[in-house]
């Protein structure tokens, strides 16, 4: 939330977007990995389905 924190340096828009993109990519990788793990080894179901 902009302007909320007091002690750390302010980030610019570019840096914020870049860091968010990186975090989002990690999150997507995590969730896709979670999907695979919950389907294939845990339930013995194909993912992705072919």
């Amino acid at each position: 939330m902009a302007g909320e924190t007091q002690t750390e340096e302010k980030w610019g828009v570019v840096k914020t977007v870049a860091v968010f993109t990186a975090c989002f990519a990690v999150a997507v990788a995590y969730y896709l990995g979670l999907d695979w793990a919950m389907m294939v080894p845990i339930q013995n179901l194909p993912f992705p389905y072919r």
Partner: protein
Amino acid sequence: MLKWGNRDMARRGAIGLLVIWGLFLLLLPLAPGIVSVFAEEAPAAAANADPNAKKDDTPKAEVAKDVYYKTEGIVSGPPAPKLKYPDDYGRYGNIQSRTLIWIANQQHLYFGSFVLAVPMFVFVMELVGMLQKDKKMGKKYDDLAHEMMKISLTAYSITAILGGLLIFTFLALYPGFFGYLAKIFKPIMHVYALLFILESGTLYVYYYGWDRMNDSNGLLKWSHLSISLLLNTIGLALMFFANTWVAFMQSPAGVDEQGRFLGNIWRAVHTPLWIPIVVHRILGNAAFGGGVVAAYAAYRLLAAKDSAERAHYDWMSYTAMFMGILNLIPLPFAGYWLMREVYAYRQQMGITLMGGLLAWVFIMQATMIATLFVTTNYYLWQAMGRMPGGERYTRYFKYLLLILIVSTLVWLTPHTLVMSPAELKAMGGAQHPVVGNYGVMSAKNTAINTIITTTVLCFVLYQRCNKVPTVKWAHFGNIVLAALFIGAELNIIFLGIYGYYIPANVRIGLSVPQVCSTLTTLFVGVTINTLMLKNARSLGEIRWGTLSTRGAYALFLLAVSFTWTMAVMGYIRSSVRLHWHINEIMRDNSPWAFTNPIGYAGNINSLNVLIFWTMLLFVFWLGALAAKKAPARQEVPVGVGVGEPVIASH
């Protein structure tokens, strides 16, 4: 040598007591097995003896196959009787016996759920109080726990009375059925009754010994806590046992296809739906109990005469609601597990529930669940109104509400509509070309996971409502949280859409990663948020006692919604057996072996809710009557809270 003043020794001693109790309670489930070893088995062997056999021939015990486990066992009981009406049924005038047993059963379940849930909260509150470094805060939690226990005390007696009423109703109106059930479950029923005696004694020692055993976290206090643990364990054991009969009726095991008991009580107890029902009920009861206590506190808040009393009950209502909602969040997942086990046990039963006769009853349930979650979010928004700094998040509420409404609409959408033949023809089929797509599980799972994720987000906002993070990585933490929630939601939606393009047997597995995405936001999101708020700068104390009236009414709605949801779920569970008392074993041959029309069921559910709340108001009134003193009064100006509980400060 133990020194009474040595707190460490007292704690170790109490932990020792807890361990001993724990071992005792772990062994308790063996009790039915031990009882059954000494139980007299029906002389099936002698009954099956061939009268023409030579005298020195030993009659062979008849062996039969378990209807579920498919193992062989020695026949140890008579077949399930083929009941006849009116010989094996009772009746009062023109009243449906099924409706009478329905009401008796539901009332007992309501009060049983309440007295199961409240000690769980009380245990947590007492423990939190004992672990507080701030003694004043510790006493607040302890007093809250004591007050919660007082509310439930009368409810225990009513639970037992209703249990007696239920048994008499069974004996009077369904003697044939109940006699058969009692033959099989007699060891369980006796242990059940004995546990009630143990529970009563434990309860009275626990409640009346509260002040006497309060030696400022010494041995007595820890012993008192261990009594609470014992009380909870007995309560859970009682529920485990009671659920064996319900689960046996729906998915029998331990008997052959004629209903003859095969001698292994564990098989009859451990039916395929037993544990899923237990898990779903534990969470449901805890959510329900939290809602009821929160509603009680909301009423006392509105009726409070001074600011200190208002502050106390505002805090109590939040604490109870918080514990209730903590159990509400995983509840749909437990329900989904139960449904999967129903489908695994009998696919037709699953189809009856969600795709056939009871599909519209599940739409009623969906309405109630949506009400619960939207009301929870609404309460949290109202609660943020009493926190300095809450105005920063007010602008986000409309977006959260939009997400909740859209998800609710998808969640509620039925697959088939009630239509006339002309309407069917105009629509071109049984399903609407657009809206019909939202009536399937792929859409439903997506909707409910979205609703729960939104509720988690709302709670994360509530946690940080009156705080400003001061950690150096706060901005990065916010970005991580945003990525976590957006990623989870996109994954949930992706899996929901993906489910339309794959076969059904693969699609049902997608609910697991969807659930895990939601749980990731809960556990990881709340953890990150909590870490971010360490040493955060406070924008002001929570203004306990200044919750809006709308917020208090939201708690009333929450409690009544919980009650109605339980009624409709009980109706569903009973109705799915269709014309069976015990599925595929004992047929219901009464005149009421039909599925009630949905309107009638709704009316009886509402009647049950009304009866329960009337009795509960009497319980609350008694509790208030017995109050010796009002909550600790402090001279504080209106609008300023009397203290901030640890939970809300995270």
